């Protein structure tokens, strides 16, 4: 995502900054789908 050198108004730049922060937040948060997938690969004996 490129936000530097933006010739747009402040509102747009603020939204872009919030977008970057959201991207960062989501990139470090655990993905619930991955967790489900991991559980799906747990050997059958542990799921009894």
């Amino acid at each position: 995502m490129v936000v530097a050198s933006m010739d747009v108004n402040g509102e747009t730049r603020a939204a872009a900054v919030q977008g970057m922060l959201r991207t960062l937040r989501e990139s470090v948060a655990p993905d619930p789908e991955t967790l489900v997938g991991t559980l799906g690969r747990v050997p059958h004996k542990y799921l009894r």
Partner: protein
Amino acid sequence: MRSAFLARVHDSVAVLKALYSEPSVLLPVLLSDPAPYIKAVSEAVIAKSSQPSRAIIRAHLSFLALHLLPVVPQDVVEDAFSHVFFPFLLFSKPKFRTAQAVWEIVEAAQKSAPDVGLARCESLEGCVEVMKEEERLFLSRAMTRKDESVTSAFENAEVMRKVNLAVASRMAGEYLFDIKVRLPTEWAR
């Protein structure tokens, strides 16, 4: 992404509010190398050309004092103190509101993190207490006189002078101490 964030340090209040809206997300990005960020903030708040507003100064200094400085090594804190906070600490007629706002940020930071960051900055030791005492004395005198026109103690030239003198003496004391420690090495050369 880091350079994009750094570029926004020079932006408007609205953009700064967005930038500093999630400290826990922004901090890891800046912590990998805080020096360029502190340099950018210093340039943004001291710039003579743009005359940054009090809101811009407050946004930068609040984030630094309350979020970044408590989690960086002390040499980074001292660097931020010298280049970002120090230029705003002395009171003057045209700048007393800014000085007051910056001291409030320093006080809040020292209260929220009493063992790290600005609370460990030796040059600031005891300064908030000196200010509070001068403010208390002035306001109690105003109350005795039943003077209701007083809005801020720091608007008063005598309070400004006393606080400036106390802060400057405190800081000069630190520098004298530094010189004393360094002198023998200097003389040995």
